[in-house]
């Protein structure tokens, strides 16, 4: 009984249980879900293919965003709803640098790494803008980021003069690698990018005090200040780091299709990123966080999405299914339900004891 309690009270329980549920469901419905094939792609390379690969591939951007969103949530007690719009900006910047003013360039105008770094800087500036509103002007994060949420996609379009640049394979084969495959490597590149991001994050959390500082600020700003921390700076930093995550996600997004559509790129991804944080068992009101749980939450969401696609649930109905998950999570984490479950557990233990004694 105690071990059961230990397991259920662990923060990893929720995402793991959800994952298990999805796996069991798919095993029953169609074990073929877990099959992985080696196929030859159109570039002539052998690559893995299958639902599991799709989940890992498509979940990459979300996992990367979940990292930043977790930090922002922990430090500020709110969420950034502008990440989708800033991805559009970041993607637009990459294309602007690579293409110059020519929407269909013959050759790239700059190395991809330069474009990516500039996009990182731009996204971090927008992150800093959001962070400054939250940290210094004390605006609720959702309200503060509403500004970029509203304006971001227009800014993205403005960066490229409303044109839709396309990077053809003739201009650069390499550009498509970030959202596709590197020749000779059978696993989608976004998976590696996500793994690298996760590893870097874990190293940062281990070798710096980022975790302690953000949690401390998120839980009690006054105390943190009196312990020599600078809460404003730490909140700002969380938003800037999220900006960096956004830039990486933006690169993958534009690389996937080698172009951009300002109004639909990464649409509604902010909701999935927030959901990933919540699914990881992290309080959306800030404070303590568990990064691994958030990242796992991101893949669970992608697992759910892919499962729903498999069963041909239409894309516009997906939010409804996700809403069910949200409702379940919120209700389960409510103190009143927790108390009730706790009492139920005790009663069961008591009756079992009685039964054993008699």
């Amino acid at each position, binding site marked *: 009984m105690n071990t059961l309690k230990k397991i259920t009270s662990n923060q990893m329980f929720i995402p793991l249980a959800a994952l298990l549920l999805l796996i069991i469901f798919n095993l029953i419905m169609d074990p073929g879900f877990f099959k992985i094939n080696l196929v030859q792609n159109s570039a002539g390379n052998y690559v893995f293919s299958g639902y599991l690969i799709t989940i890992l591939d498509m979940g990459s951007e979300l996992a990367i965003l979940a990292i930043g969103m977790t930090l922002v949530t922990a430090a500020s007690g709110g969420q950034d709803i502008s990440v989708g719009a800033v991805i559009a900006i970041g993607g637009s910047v990459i294309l602007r640098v690579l293409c110059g003013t020519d929407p269909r360039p013959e050759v790239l105008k700059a190395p991809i790494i330069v474009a990516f770094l500039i996009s990182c800087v731009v996204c971090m500036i927008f992150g800093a803008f959001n962070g400054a509103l939250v940290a210094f002007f004390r605006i609720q994060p959702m309200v503060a980021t509403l500004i970029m949420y509203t304006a971001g996609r227009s800014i993205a379009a403005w960066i490229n003069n409303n044109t839709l640049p396309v990077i053809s394979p003739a201009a650069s084969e390499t550009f498509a690698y970030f959202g596709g495959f590197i020749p000779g490597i059978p696993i989608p590149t976004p998976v590696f990018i996500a793994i690298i991001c996760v590893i870097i994050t874990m190293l940062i959390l281990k070798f710096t*005090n*980022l975790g*302690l500082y953000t949690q401390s600020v998120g839980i*009690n700003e006054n105390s943190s200040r*009196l312990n020599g*921390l600078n809460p404003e700076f730490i909140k700002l930093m969380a938003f800037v780091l999220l900006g960096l995550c956004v830039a990486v996600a933006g690169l993958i997004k534009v690389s996937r299709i080698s172009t951009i559509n300002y109004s639909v790129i990464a649409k509604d991804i902010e909701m999935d990123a927030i959901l990933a944080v919540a699914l990881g068992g992290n309080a959306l009101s800030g404070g*303590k966080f568990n990064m691994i749980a958030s990242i796992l939450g991101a893949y669970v969401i992608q697992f759910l999405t892919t499962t729903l696609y498999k069963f041909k649930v239409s894309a516009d109905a997906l939010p409804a299914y996700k809403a069910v998950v949200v409702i379940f999570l919120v209700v389960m984490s409510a103190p009143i339900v927790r108390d009730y479950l706790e009492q139920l557990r005790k009663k069961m233990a008591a009756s079992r004891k009685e039964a054993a004694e008699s």
Partner: protein
Amino acid sequence: MDKNSVLEMRDIQKSFPGVRALMGVDFTLKEGEIHALMGENGAGKSTLIKVLTGVYTKDDGHIFLKGSEEVNIHSPQDAQRLGISTVYQEITLCPNLSVAENMYIGRGDGSTVNWKDMNQKADKILQSLDIPTTAAAQLSSCSIAVQQMVAIARAVDMECKVLILDEPTSSLDDQEVAKLFKLMRDLKAKGVGIIFVTHFLDQVYEVCDRITVLRDGRLVGEYEIADLPRVKLVSKMLGKEMDDLSDIKGEAKEYSKDDASEKVFEAKGLQSNAGISPFDFYINKGEVNGFTGLLGSGRSECVRAIFGADKVIGGSVSKSGKPINISKPIDAMKNGIAYLPEDRKLDGIVGDLSVRDNIILALQVLKGFFKPFTKAEANKFADEYIKLLGIKTASADTPIKSLSGGNQQKCILARWLLTKPEYLILDEPTRGIDVGTKVDIQKLVLKLASEGMSITFISSETDEMLRTCSRLIVMRDRKVVGELKGDELTQNMIMSTIAGGESKE
């Protein structure tokens, strides 16, 4: 059920993860009595009160109210409906509403409110209780003391049978306390049973009829006030015989070793944006000094200015003769200054973090962003101080918010001691904590001073300051009005200096 009792609680059980907070506690409240509920922090007083008011649901046991069978209380609304009203230590009103709104919020039967009526009624009650505010004033514009009284007024007007006062006096000055006591006696005469939770022994003996003592979640006993002299009460609470509280006084002089040769810290014309007049201040190596004055006289603001907790807008400071610049807490910390803030909950603890993280926080910040302690190092520090200060916690991983107030305070103290400060500022370190811990802290202060640490000690209880400090800076109306030392350190001198009598230096 005894027909004189308004409330009987029998065999109450309550446990939290890892802690059994109440183990078979009985409690009886008679009609028209003031009943003190005593015990150290963590003894189970707050839990018992919260069970009674429906904040917690009891695991087992029975509650009876006069004129009814056994009652089940599942929510604060249940309790309110049954005539059980509570005034908590921390104000639980809405600061952005008016006084009248606060008095009537969540009451009444319907959705309509007659504002005029409400304000008139509220004004009448405020007048009858002599509370210096008006119904229309916004609550946040009132002092903490007045807010507390509004909370009582709210409870009184609810025609309650049982009134619970949980540490209501910790932020009131003497006059206000006297007013409150008058009010309590009036209510007692009307037959209301009052449960009074406090740490002030004097107050217990001034106003209460009977005492129930809890220790470690168990009932120690129920006593008539006349049968239980102070010393006995304290020993019941601590669970050990104790010679006398005043023992420490003798030790004080022995410990205190003021090395006047070195001014560890000195401030000239220091001024912050918290509205205090510029002041001069210094402290010697190994000295214990203190700021005294009425609540709100600017004691805390002075030390906050020293630590850089408020924005410093003028003056100069130096450390051991060398000028330094302190504009924010980290500057002070780097100069070996530590500050234990007045409001433990708001400024001290980081609630959701573990005891360990709370203890290492300040030292960690000093060490730097890129140099986190290893888990082993952190555990070593935490275990060392948990043992040294006798912090009662299930483990170093326990969130600090689940500890009792006194133990939380010890964690914060541990946090600052860990930084090995040269100069330690303690702002009300003993407020709202039990007698045992108070004595521990006072002893610790003197011991640290004897080891060469300079300490500024602030307390609302003057006798505590007289016991520990060798020099007192007296404040009135946000100004330093005097300094007392040596023979001048008497209760009378302090009083007259605060009052502005001719005995002023």
